[in-house]
């Protein structure tokens, strides 16, 4: 079969899964999970099929396009329902479907006691479908559709427990910020379409060198607008505020959003549109600087957050910052490589966090967790593997991929060298906050929940409450369910986490400087025409290895720091807090970004709304326009009414006057 046939099949199975589960939600109980997992699993098989079919073609013929029907073909626009299968999209398909299958598998156990079990799997399938449309779309319109579907799916899943006002608030926040990103994408498309007169990717890319020169105004404007889309979806500063709030969703959903789908879309976008970004180095610099800023800001916030899921969320922001920085600088294959390894270890970290939250009876606060090492050996092992990979410790996968990005950025020189050095600072923060989390949750004196678990009982909350507000849960629907699950007792969770742990350890070896180049070779044909991806810009093997060694040392320094602060001298953190209260406040309040956006955007928008409603609408429209018109009509009719006196002489006079006026008019006009 041709690669595109496989591509359509990859889309078909999640679509069928969504529809089947959605239509039969009343009849399934456990079957929804099986159907959902099988649908994504089959999509993964088809993605592998697409890979094999693509590898069977010569290196220069690996961009295959296929359309179903005309979608918006009119007045010069040529959008068809079209997919593009090339190494980049196949790579993304494999990562998305592969990791998503494991997350589905994990969910079958994790969500077992939830009232909305079928609804959950319908949404989850839809989420994966959206992400697959995004990566497979063959033109800008399809890309935007996938882009918005991902936003809608994330909204549905973030506010999955919809009785919680915190969840619905987080959902609408995520959705609105993502729509802002959609608008960026649409306007960016307009800027490109204005010159290329096509919305198809291949057509645009072919035309780009002919219609734009380096840093053309419209091209830079278009690329910056694409970056707005990328920042919104990938949670880059200042459009990141939805991501930590998105932790309101069930834990496997966080895992899906952060690892396989959604936040990686921005990175994919830049890599997909690299022929445009190649010619817009100014936009590339903006992207790299924002990525670098994000990775530092997120790293500092992660140091003080006490909600275990939010710490991981900020670490995602930070890691995506690396990818955005790399992709903007031109390190396309390194960015996608890090995207893949990050998907493995971040999914793993969230699953392990879900397991420990289960043991804590739904509580997510690091202040309450302690000493789970002995009670949950499997979870601990997985968390440790994920943490080491995240911190970039050899030989774990994150080490190879993150340092590949930093090495490339350093190698480009100029402003990028500064960004690379800041990237190392971020690596230090990563080691520190990751092991702060691990040391606090798994080391030290066992907490009551951990002790109970050591005796074989999982803790249960007397009254389930919303961890964010302490509000009592609605028991009938819209809360995580009365039963708590941990990985130690659930084979499905164990399999998913075990496989991911394995991948987090060995997944990096497919791309080892001087030894193997699987990813660079595979993506090579797509990136062949990109000067920034050429061998001249790639760091040499020697430089790459020096970068790897520096990265490893910095990661170890971060872990050592965490060890000395949280294990050797446990009071140190509190002393720091007391010494620098303003800094602590600043970080706990997340650099006041939420407040800033509230003051700059939300309040003015609502104020304008109220102003229009209370002042303009009442006074201008109801008073002025409507009142004026009504008054005019009324006084006009009153005047006419007064004329109806019933006096015949007056009527006769009016008739004569009128007639003579008409006669006069014709006399004058005829001369």
């Amino acid at each position, binding site marked *: 079969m041709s690669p595109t046939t496989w591509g359509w099949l990859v889309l078909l199975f999640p679509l069928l899964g969504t529809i089947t589960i*959605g239509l039969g*939600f009343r009849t399934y109980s456990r079957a929804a999970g099986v159907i959902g997992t099988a649908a994504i699993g089959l999509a993964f098989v088809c993605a592998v099929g697409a890979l094999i079919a693509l590898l069977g073609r010569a290196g220069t013929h690996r961009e295959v396009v296929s359309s179903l*029907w*005309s*979608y*918006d*073909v*009119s*007045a*010069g*626009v040529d959008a068809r329902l079209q997919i593009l299968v090339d190494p980049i999209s196949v790579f993304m398909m494999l990562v998305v479907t592969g990791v998503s299958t494991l997350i589905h598998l994990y969910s079958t156990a994790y969500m077992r006691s939830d009232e909305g079990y079928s*609804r959950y799997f319908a949404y989850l399938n839809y989420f994966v479908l959206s992400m697959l449309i995004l990566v497979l779309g063959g033109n800008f*319109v399809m890309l*935007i*559709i996938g*882009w*918005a*579907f991902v936003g*809608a799916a994330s*909204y549905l899943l973030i*506010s999955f427990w*919809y*009785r919680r*006002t915190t969840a*619905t608030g987080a*959902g*609408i926040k995520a*959705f*609105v910020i993502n*729509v*802002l990103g*959609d*608008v960026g994408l*649409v*306007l960016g498309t*307009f800027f490109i*379409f*204005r010159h290329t007169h096509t919305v198809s990717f291949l057509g645009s890319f072919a035309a780009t060198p002919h219609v734009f020169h380096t840093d053309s105004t419209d091209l830079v404007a278009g690329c910056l607008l694409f970056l707005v889309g990328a920042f919104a979806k990938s949670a880059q500063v200042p459009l990141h505020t939805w991501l930590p709030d998105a932790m309101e969703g069930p834990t496997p959903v966080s895992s899906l959003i952060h690892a396989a789908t959604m936040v990686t879309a921005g990175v994919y976008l830049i890599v997909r549109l690299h022929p445009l970004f190649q010619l817009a180095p100014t936009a590339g610099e903006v992207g790299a600087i924002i990525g670098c800023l994000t990775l530092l800001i997120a790293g500092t916030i992660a140091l003080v957050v006490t909600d275990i899921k939010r710490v991981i969320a900020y670490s995602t922001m930070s890691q995506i910052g690396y990818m955005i920085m790399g992709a903007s600088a031109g390190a396309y294959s390194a960015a996608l490589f890090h995207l893949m390894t990050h998907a493995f270890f971040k999914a793993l970290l969230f699953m392990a966090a879900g397991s420990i939250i289960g043991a804590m009876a739904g509580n997510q606060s690091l202040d309450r967790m302690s000493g789970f090492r002995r009670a949950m050996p499997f979870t601990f092992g997985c968390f440790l593997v994920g943490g080491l990979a995240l911190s970039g410790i050899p030989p774990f996968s994150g080490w190879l991929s993150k340092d590949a990005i930093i090495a490339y950025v350093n190698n480009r020189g100029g402003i990028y060298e500064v960004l690379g050095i800041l990237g190392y600072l971020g690596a230090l923060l990563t080691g520190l906050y990751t092991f702060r989390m691990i040391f606090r949750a798994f080391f030290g004196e066992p907490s009551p929940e951990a002790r109970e678990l050591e005796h074989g009982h999982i803790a249960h909350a007397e009254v389930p409450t919303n961890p964010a507000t302490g509000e009592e849960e*609605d028991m*009938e*629907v*819209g809360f995580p369910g009365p039963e708590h699950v941990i990985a130690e007792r659930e084979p499905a969770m164990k399999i998913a986490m075990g496989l991911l742990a394995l991948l987090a350890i060995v997944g990096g070896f497919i791309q080892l400087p001087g030894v193997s180049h699987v990813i660079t070779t595979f993506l090579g044909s797509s990136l062949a025409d990109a000067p920034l991806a050429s061998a001249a810009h790639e760091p040499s093997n020697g430089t790459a290895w020096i970068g790897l060694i520096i990265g490893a040392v910095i990661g170890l320094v971060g872990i050592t720091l965490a060890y000395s602060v949280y294990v050797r001298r446990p009071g140190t953190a509190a002393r720091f807090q007391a010494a620098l209260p303003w800094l602590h406040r600043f970080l706990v309040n997340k650099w006041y970004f939420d407040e800033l956006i509230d003051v700059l955007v939300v309040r003015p*928008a*609502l104020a*304008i*709304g*109220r*102003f*229009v*409603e209370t002042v*303009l*609408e009442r006074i*201008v*429209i*109801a008073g002025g*326009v*409507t009142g004026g*018109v*009504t008054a005019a*009509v009324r006084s006009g009719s009153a005047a006419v009414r007064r004329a109806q006196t019933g006096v015949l002489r007056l009527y006769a006079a009016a008739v004569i006057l009128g007639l003579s006026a008409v006669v006069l008019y014709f006399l004058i006009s005829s001369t």
Partner: protein
Amino acid sequence: MHLAHPSSAPFTLSILIWLPLALALIVNALPARAVGRAAAVASLLPVAVAVTFVVDFNSHFPGLQFVTDQVWIGALGIHYKLGINGLNLALVLLTTVLFTVSLAWSAMREVDRPHTYYFWFGLAESAVLGAFLAQDLMLFVAFFDLMLIPFYFLVGSWGTGERVRATIKMVIYTMVGSFLMLAAAVATGVIASGDHGTALNFTFSALQHLPLSRTDENWIFLAFALAFLVKMPITPFHGWLADAYKSMPIPAVAVFSGVVAKVASYGFLQIVLPLFPHAAHHFQVLMLIIALVSIMWGTAMAFTTGDARLVIAYSSVAQMGFILLGIFSLTPQGGQGALLQMLNHGVVTAASFFVVAALAARAGGSERLEDMGGIAFRAPVLATLFLIVTLANLAMPGSSNFIGEFMILLGTFDSHIAIALIASVAVVGASFYALRLFIRAMHNRVGGRVVSLEISRAEAVAIVPLCLIILALAFFPQFGLSKSEGSMRLSTYAAAQPGGNASPSLPSAQSAELTGWWAYPPLRQLAYSPQKPRRVYTYRTTSTHRTLHS
């Protein structure tokens, strides 16, 4: 001169127009109990007739098809001329469908004085169809004003709340616009015949070739524009909207906002742009700014209002602003987007009003947002349908509404980039107010008076078909685009010329390779199709057709 098309439908357009009224009269003979069901079932007949016209329509032919042309008032040169082209085809189908759905909704409920109620509905459908199909200026004005009468009675007699005030407001607003339009319509015909020394004729096709002087064109344009802007409605002429929409019975407001308002925006495309191209070009920026104000105004109001029905009403103001924006971008993209958006908005807004009625039924009859909440709990199907409507209403990519807005903004972007950039901010606002309505009604804690029930058959009968149409259009928005391409180029061509070039001249028979309509400059592009020869029909012959490039 007949621009008839060789392929013909088994019915004339007159049958389509008067069928609803005739059926309403027939079912009036039935006992009160059966009137509603009979009217609903009978209204499927106009749908079927409209479908046959859609099927028989030749999308490659840009001119009028299925023409009926008879002299109505000979002395005044008024014709009873009807016809379909790409501009009104989809809207005619939409009209019949929305009326059927609204009648079905009514039939499942108890209605006071059903005989008169269903009679007014029948008259309303005939009037709307007439306004869409009329190809003579005076005939159009007649149907346009006829539309007001049934709604006057529907609000006045079956409305709720402050219905008398609402009726008066609506009637005064509309009448002011209508009188101006009547005067302008008379003036158009009289001045045109006077300037060119021809016999009085009000058909669009004749007037198109009798250009007016610039000054005359300008004031006539303003009169027409005012009438249409009031009817759409567009800020600042929407003063009647809140009261009228609030007091209308739900089925009436669904068709009013769904299709009656569309007659006005359609009027811009079918009448104003081809007949007054220079004035349209002259006032383009003014109209774009009015559209922009309307978008922002509607969005801001929908942001804050606490009434579910008014959220939809004001979102309509914003949407109509987008449609006006597309029309006055004076580009084929913008026009196509506007036309598609009329279709989309008609379906979505009607569905929204039905959903609001379903919500109110569960919130103790209140349409206030603070009385709602948590309805999704026992009503997952209703919640899903509402979600589909919501996402389409906020024009999420993947819905047909998105393609409409995409084309509108693209056209505006080409003509006035700054206005397109500002308008796109409102897209973000739309996502907020639409989701706010959904969340406040469906999610969060259960409201005090809420009784959550699954969607009933009486509600599903209207909401489900509309949702299916929304889904179908989402997969195939091309349905609304492919048939109107040629007509749209004809409509926007003259107005789009900078400096208002001469109105499109009649196609010349001398043109070497292209004959008939395809000699028109705006259509030449379309006619050249290097891949395959296209079968086209010449406008002169009624019985033969030729093949290009053969």
